[in-house]
Each structure stands twice: as structure tokens, then as C-alpha cells.
């Protein structure tokens, strides 16, 4: 058997989170909106219309390029890319060709052996999105649909296209690359980076080669709508190509799409002739010139990048890289961590709380940490109580839930639950235990009679006590009291 390795390059389209479209003032907020209502002569390509570049789109793209360590071209031009398709109103897309906005950057991912590897970014450029098609088949698939419906709300939304060199060596690594890129664009605030919603789209080029051998025929894979789909599609495709090679068959350079239902890649409808896009510089748009000083300023204004935050959490907070990964996956969560630590919460406590309670709530409610109905200072206060031992973790969870539910602060929640933020200890505790033991005298008798080999009944009694004390007793103290009384 030959020792094949995959050679993967990715082409990622990132929808930019600007308010208006790339070349006109129509709103980019098109989800769930009436079809063909966020349109105008420009994004409809009506005769006589002309494009006008969105400043924010440029800034966002440069910001991303700088974070990816690209070289930003101070002079760049837009090209027209021609093809006929119903979602393309001018029958050309305004894009960039041989003088793109940025080139030669990289993003680091980890290898299978745990080391980091640089995946080189070939180019980053700006272009406009096309409209959306809805097909008349029951499945919504294009193939065989008797007719299709077109909505141009999405036409003209700014897209950032990022193309990597074929440096990616496995499906898993491809997944990680996209995951990291997605994290980056979210950290930078330039995009929602949502694959399912379509604001981050990935196409892959995959071929196989033997170590030291020549590159094989490239196959383009499209229609991977989640990280999982991406990984599985590339795994499948690698296997398919390996098998073909081993059977002595040639690999056809073609486009295939991933079929999530049947978990295979299928050749897309082949065209007799290759597309000839007839690129030429768009005469309606003079060269885009970005002042060096603007680039320097944007560089200065770059927020802390995800890998920088991760590094800081490991080095400054002494967290393990796994823990840090979870905490820095989302920018809003990492920010919360920093804030809690600033308020004096010990790192370990904050880290645990965030990774359990906070993430749960954020995911349940689908919100961002800034939108928690509770002040960070209040969360800090709660955690400090736990840290001092004044509140057990169990009790704290109850308090937190009440705080969230009613948007109240710690003090009010504690009061409402009738808890004492102090421990229940000593004579007070003893009194409760005595009560419990007398109410469960039959169980106590059984234990005394030696019928509790496994200690289940003791635990049962302990449980009742803990419930009665609303978790404010120290379990060890409870246990010793019970033991002594039995």
C-alpha cells in the first residue's frame, strides 16, 4: 500500500458585518426579510447604476489582513468576473484579481504531534455577494427543479475571500483552520462567522500525494455547511482518492459537492467548457488607495487576538492550555474572565464557574456575555462568597439562577432563598441534625444494628441534612456530627 497524504487548500468567503452593502447603501440585515426589499438600482444592477465602495468593508478587510500577518497593498484594484447565473444581476461580479487587497499571511494550527504549523494565506480580497436562489424541487435541490426563484436581498453584501496555500495536511487540520479563522473574525468583530447561517463559507481543494512526490489532480469540494461536514467531506474525499489511486485509476480534476444526507461527495454537473471569466479591471472603480498611516493606525487598534489571549491566560493565569482554550474560544467569555479576575475572584474559581455555569447559560439562552441580566460585579461577589466558604457551590448555583431569572443582585437573591451567607455550623447545625435523626429514627436504628454495610443509609441521612440546611453546612462537619450521634 502506498503512503498517501492529503494536500488541502481552502478558499473561505467571510460575509462582513457592515451595516450596508459593499457598493450601495442597502441594509445587509437580510435574514427573515421580505424578498427583494433590501435592494436598489445598484445591487440590482439596473442599467445606469454605478458602484460606490463601502469604507467599513475596507477597514474590516484590512483589520483581518493585519491579524493574519498579511502584506496590505496600499494600491489595489477591482476586477469584473463574468459569468451568467440568475443570482448575479450584472452578469459579472465585482471582485479582485491580480492586485488584491492583501497577500502572504499565515494562521497557525496544531499538528497531530501537538506542534504548531503555519498555514500560509495566499491572498485576501474583497468582493460582492450574489443573490439567493430557491428551487422548486421538494428537496429544495437545484438538480431538475422546474423553475427557481431569485431574491436579491443578499446581492451586494460585502465578502472577504481568503485563500490558503495547499499547506493543510489533514481533514482534522482543515477543520481546525476554519475554526480558528472563524474565531478570529469574531474576535475582530468583522463577521458573525456563522457557517450554518452562511456568513462563513468554505470550499476546499484536495489532492493526494506521496511524501516527496508530485501534487496530484486537484478536486474541488463544495457545499460543506458546518465544521463537521468539512471534516467528514475531506476525510471521505481523501479515502476516495486513495482507493482510486490504489486501484490504478486516474483522479479526475473536477468539482464535487458534499452530500450530507448520504455522506459522500458527488460530482457536480460538468460543463463542456471551462469557465472563462474574462477578468478585466472595472472601469467604474478607480484604484483603491489606502494611506500607509491608516494601515499603521488600524494595526495599532487591533484588539488582542485569540491566540494572544490564550497565551496570556496560560502564562499569567497559570491555566492549562485546554482550560484556556475553552475560556478564550469566545471573546465575550474571555473578557468576562478578565473582569472577574480583576474583581478579585481567584483564577481557579472564575475558570470553573465560567466553564460550568456561565457557558451553560450563554448557550441555553443563545446570548453574549455582555447581555447577561446580571452585572459582572455581582457575579464576582457571588463567587467570592463561595471562595470564602460562606456559600456552598450548590447553593451558589441556586442563587445564580435566581439572580438571572429575576435580574436581581446577590444580596436580594440570597435573602429570597432564605439562605444565610455564613455557614451553618456548631450548635445550630447540631440542632438540625438532631431533628433529622429523630425524624428518621428507624434509619438510625438500622445503622446502629449494623445494617449499613455500604454506608448508603448514612449518606441518605447526610443528604437530608444538606437539604435541610440548604447546602450551607460543611459536609465534613455534618458527617462527623452524624457519626458521633449514632
Amino acid at each position: 500500500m502506498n503512503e498517501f497524504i492529503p494536500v488541502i487548500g481552502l478558499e473561505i468567503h467571510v460575509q462582513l458585518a457592515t451595516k450596508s452593502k459593499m457598493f450601495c447603501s442597502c441594509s445587509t440585515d437580510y435574514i427573515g426579510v421580505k424578498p427583494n426589499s433590501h435592494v436598489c438600482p445598484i445591487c440590482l444592477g439596473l442599467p445606469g447604476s454605478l458602484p460606490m465602495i463601502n469604507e467599513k468593508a475596507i477597514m474590516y478587510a484590512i483589520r483581518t489582513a493585519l491579524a493574519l500577518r498579511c502584506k496590505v497593498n496600499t494600491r489595489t484594484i477591482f476586477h469584473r468576473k463574468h459569468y451568467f447565473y440568475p443570482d448575479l444581476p450584472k452578469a459579472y461580479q465585482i471582485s479582485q484579481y491580480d492586485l488584491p487587497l492583501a497577500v502572504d499571511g499565515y494562521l497557525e494550527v496544531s499538528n497531530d504531534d501537538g506542534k504548531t504549523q503555519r498555514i500560509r494565506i495566499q491572498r485576501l480580497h474583497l468582493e460582492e455577494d450574489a443573490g439567493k436562489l430557491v428551487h422548486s424541487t421538494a428537496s429544495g435541490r437545484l438538480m431538475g427543479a422546474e423553475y427557481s426563484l431569485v431574491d436579491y436581498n443578499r446581492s451586494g453584501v460585502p465578502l472577504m475571500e481568503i485563500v490558503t496555500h495547499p499547506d493543510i495536511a489533514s481533514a482534522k487540520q482543515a477543520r481546525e483552520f476554519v475554526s480558528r479563522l472563524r474565531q478570529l473574525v469574531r474576535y475582530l468583530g468583522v463577521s458573525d462567522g456563522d457557517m450554518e447561517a452562511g456568513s462563513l463559507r468554505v470550499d476546499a481543494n484536495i489532492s493526494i500525494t506521496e511524501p516527496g512526490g508530485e501534487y496530484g489532480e486537484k478536486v474541488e469540494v463544495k457545499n460543506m455547511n458546518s465544521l463537521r461536514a468539512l471534516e467528514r467531506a475531506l476525510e471521505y474525499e481523501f479515502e476516495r482518492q486513495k482507493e482510486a489511486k490504489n486501484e490504478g485509476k486516474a483522479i479526475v480534476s473536477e468539482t464535487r459537492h458534499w452530500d450530507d444526507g448520504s455522506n459522500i461527495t458527488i460530482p457536480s454537473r460538468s460543463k463542456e467548457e471551462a469557465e472563462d471569466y474574462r477578468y478585466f479591471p472595472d472601469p467604474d472603480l478607480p484604484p483603491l488607495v489606502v494611506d500607509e498611516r491608516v494601515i499603521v493606525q488600524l494595526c495599532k487598534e487591533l484588539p488582542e487576538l485569540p491566540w494572544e489571549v490564550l497565551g496570556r491566560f496560560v502564562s499569567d493565569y497559570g491555566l492549562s492550555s485546554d482550560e484556556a482554550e475553552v475560556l478564550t474560544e469566545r471573546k465575550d467569555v474571555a473578557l468576562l474572565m478578565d473582569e472577574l479576575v480583576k474583581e478579585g475572584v481567584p483564577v481557579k474559581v472564575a475558570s470553573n464557574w465560567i466553564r460550568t455555569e456561565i457557558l451553560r447559560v450563554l448557550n441555553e439562552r443563545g446570548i453574549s456575555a455582555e447581555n447577561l441580566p446580571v452585572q459582572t460585579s455581582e457575579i464576582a461577589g457571588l463567587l467570592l462568597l463561595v471562595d470564602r466558604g460562606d456559600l456552598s457551590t450548590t447553593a451558589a448555583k441556586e442563587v445564580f439562577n435566581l439572580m438571572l431569572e429575576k435580574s436581581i443582585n446577590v444580596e436580594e437573591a440570597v435573602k429570597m432563598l432564605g439562605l444565610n451567607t455564613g455557614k451553618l455550623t456548631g450548635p445550630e447545625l447540631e440542632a438540625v441534625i438532631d431533628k433529622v435523626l429523630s425524624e428518621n429514627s428507624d434509619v438510625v436504628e438500622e445503622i446502629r444494628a449494623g445494617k449499613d454495610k455500604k454506608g448508603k443509609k448514612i449518606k441518605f441521612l447526610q443528604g437530608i441534612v444538606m437539604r435541610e440546611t440548604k447546602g450551607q453546612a460543611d459536609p465534613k462537619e455534618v458527617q462527623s456530627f452524624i457519626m458521633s450521634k449514632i
Partner: protein
Amino acid sequence: MDITPEELVEDVRRMARLAMIELNKEETKQIAEQFKSILDQLQTLRELDTSDINPFPLEDRDPTPWRSDEAALWNRYNEVLSQAPASEDGYFKVPQIVRDDRNEE
């Protein structure tokens, strides 16, 4: 560069496919003939030594202006569909894009 008449006709057909224009046999033939005389004229440009020239100099043009990122509603959007050759439920309508060649489905 000497192109044969057959090659010219094939060129015209290929361009007609790229440009999505239907031509009948007569039109194709006529345009192929005109192509020849026009392309001959255009060939004159090859006499020029253009090796040092940048076809798209960036320096002496005024840079493209930018627009600030503000969303605005174009309140005539309803009229656009009224001139659409085919529409349905607020969408533009196009006939079959891809035939299903496969027999299963």
C-alpha cells in the same frame, strides 16, 4: 496569425456561447466574415512596441472615493418586480437551471 474561415466560424460560435447570444447559421457566417476584417484591423496594434508600458497605471488617476457605512432604504423596491418578465410571491422567476440527467431520484 492566420485563422482559417472554419476556425473563425468556430470562434464566433464559442464567443456566442460565452456571451449567451443565439445566432442562426446565416448570422454566424456573416459575423465570422466581419470578424476577419475587424480582427485584421486590430492586428495593426501589434506594430507598437509596448514592452515598457503599464496598461493600467495607478499613479496618475484620482483614487476611488469611499462611502460611509450607513444603511438606507430605497423605497421604490416594490416597483422593480412589476417589470420582471416572470415573478412569483415577491421573487423573480427563472426556468429550469439544470436538467436532472440521472434516472434515479
